[in-house]
C-alpha cells in the first residue's frame, strides 16, 4: 500500500532542503514554535538570526513570520497541522495576505498521522479552512521528491503557500508541475482525481476500471482546466486525504456548464474517538484500497 516505503520522510526532506536553501538565500527564514527544532539544529548554528524559535506560542509564530515578511524576508513557518493552521487562524487570515505579504506554511501530521494521539493532534479541516481565504496556493505532495520541487518553487515566490507534508507517501514520485494536475492514465468510464498520498491506493483500487486518473499535488488554485479538458464521462471521483468534499465546489465550478455527477471521498466529518494506526483510520474513512474499490465500483455501476 502507501506506507512509508522511502528511507527519507517528507519531513526529513523538508528540513534538509530548507537547510540547504538557508545557505543559498539570505532572504529565507524559518519560524518554529518548538516543534521541528531538532531538524534544524545544524542550520541554526550557522544562521541563528534566521531560524527563530518562539517557544510554544503559535499565534506569535505566524505574526513573527508576518513581520519578517514585512521587513523583506521570505519566512517559512512550520508545525503540526492543527497548531499551524487552526489555532492561529486569525493570524493566518490577517497577518499575511491581508497585510499584502506572504509566507510559506509547512505542516506535518496531515489528517491523522498521529492517529494514536487522538483528536487534538489531527486536523483534516486544514485545507478547507485555508481554502476559504483568497490567494493561497496549497500543495499536497505525495512523495519526498515532490516536497523538494514544491518547496523550491514556494521559496522562490512571494505569495502565500501551504505545503502539507504527510507520513504516508507514494512509493514513487510523479513528474509534477506546480499548479497542474498530472495525467497518470486515460480512460473513458470516469475521471478520478487522486490527491497526494492517495494516488497509489487509488490506482490499485481502480486497476480494473477504464478510468482517467489525474494526480493532484496542488489543490489550490484547483486545476479545473485539466479536469475539463480530459473529461470523457460525466462521472467524476475526488479522492482527498483530508475533509471529504473539500474540493467539490471547485469540481462544480470547473464543470458548471457540463452535466456531471460527483463522488467525494475523504475524511468524514465526525468526532472520531479512536487511536490505533493511520491505516485503521484510512479504513474508518473509506480511504483504504478495499473501501475505495468498493465505493468507486458502486458509483460507476449506478
Amino acid at each position, binding site marked *: 500500500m502507501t506506507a512509508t516505503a522511502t528511507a527519507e520522510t517528507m519531513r526529513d526532506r523538508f528540513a534538509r532542503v530548507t537547510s540547504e536553501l538557508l545557505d543559498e538565500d*539570505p532572504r529565507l*527564514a524559518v*519560524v518554529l514554535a518548538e516543534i521541528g527544532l531538532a531538524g534544524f539544529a545544524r542550520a541554526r548554528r550557522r544562521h541563528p*538570526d*534566521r531560524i*527563530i524559535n*518562539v*517557544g510554544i*506560542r503559535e*499565534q*506569535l509564530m505566524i*505574526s*513573527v*513570520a*508576518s*513581520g*519578517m*515578511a*514585512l*521587513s*523583506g*524576508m521570505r*519566512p517559512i513557518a512550520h508545525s503540526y497541522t492543527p497548531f499551524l493552521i487552526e489555532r492561529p487562524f*486569525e*493570524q493566518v487570515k*490577517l*497577518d499575511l495576505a*491581508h*497585510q*499584502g505579504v506572504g509566507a510559506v506554511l509547512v505542516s506535518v501530521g496531515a489528517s491523522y498521522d498521529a492517529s494514536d494521539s487522538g483528536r487534538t493532534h489531527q486536523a483534516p479541516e486544514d485545507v478547507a479552512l485555508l481554502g476559504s481565504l483568497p490567494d493561497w496556493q496549497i500543495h499536497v505532495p505525495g512523495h519526498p521528491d515532490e516536497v523538494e520541487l514544491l518547496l523550491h518553487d514556494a521559496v522562490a515566490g512571494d505569495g502565500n503557500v501551504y505545503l502539507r507534508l504527510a507520513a504516508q507517501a507514494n512509493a514513487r514520485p510523479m513528474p509534477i508541475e506546480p499548479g497542474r494536475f498530472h495525467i497518470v492514465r486515460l480512460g473513458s468510464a470516469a475521471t478520478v482525481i487522486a490527491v497526494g498520498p492517495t494516488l497509489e491506493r487509488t490506482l490499485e483500487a481502480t486497476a480494473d476500471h477504464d478510468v482517467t486518473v489525474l494526480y493532484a499535488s496542488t489543490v489550490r488554485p484547483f486545476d479545473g482546466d485539466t479536469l475539463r479538458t480530459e473529461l470523457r464521462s460525466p462521472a467524476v471521483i475526488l479522492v482527498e486525504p483530508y475533509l471529504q468534499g473539500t474540493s467539490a465546489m471547485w469540481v462544480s465550478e470547473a464543470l458548471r456548464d457540463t452535466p456531471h455527477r460527483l463522488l467525494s471521498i475523504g475524511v468524514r466529518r465526525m468526532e472520531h474517538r479512536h487511536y490505533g494506526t493511520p491505516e485503521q483510520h484510512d479504513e474508518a474513512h473509506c480511504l483504504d484500497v478495499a473501501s475505495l474499490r468498493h465505493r468507486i465500483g458502486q458509483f460507476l455501476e449506478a
Partner: protein
Amino acid sequence: MTDAIAVPQRDSLGYDDLPRLIALMTGDEKHSTSADSTLDVLWVLYDRVLKVSPDTADDPDRDRFLLSKGHGPMSYYAVLTAKGFIPIETLPAFGTYDSPLGHHPDRMLIPGVEISSGSLGHGLPIAIGLALGLQAQERLGRVIVLVGDAELDEGSNHEAIALAGRMGLDRLTVVVVDNRSATYGWPGGIAGRFEIEGWAAATVDGRDHGALAAALTTEHRGQPNVVVAEVEKGA
C-alpha cells in the same frame, strides 16, 4: 463648521491644526474619545521621534510605527496628514466606500501606514517579527508599536511580551496609551508586567510632549522598552 474647513497648507501644519483635521473627518468639532487618547503620543512620535517621512516611506532602514490599536484612527490620519503622508483632500470622505481612510487603517490603501489593524493584539507580535527581520538583514530602524491598555487583555500580546524580553530586542519600543479602559485592570501597574519579562519601562504623562519624547528616545541597550503613557480615564 466653517472654521473646520479652513486648514492651512500642508507644509505648515502643526499640532494646533490636528483638531481641525479631525473635524474634517468627523464633520464637527466633537470626535471619538479613542482618537483623542492617542493624539499627543502620535504627534510626538511623528514630530520628534520617528525617522520616517513621505520621502522615506519605502526606505528599508526607516523607523516603523505600528498602530496596533486601530480603533479610532482619526488622530492617526490627522497626524499623517500634518506630516504629508495623506493629502488633506482625502479626509472629508473618511469611512465612505471609495475612501482609503476606514474606521480601521489598511496599509495597502494608505502610504506610510505600516500595518492594517483593527483586530486587537496583532501589532506587537508582528513588530517582533519586523525587529527580528531587520536585525537579520543588518538594517537600521526602530520598531515602535502603540497599544491600548485594554488591548493588553488579548493573550497574543503576552506571548509577545515574554519573547521580546527574553530575546532582548532593543530596537523594539511599545507605547501603551493607558486611559484605564481595561475592565479588569492591571494590579501592580502595566509597566510591571513588562519589567518582570525583562523590559526597560517608563511611565509618563501621556499629554506631556517633553516627557513623552524623552521616554521614547532613551537608549535601552539589550532590552526592549515600554513607555506607559497615562491619559485621563475614558479619554
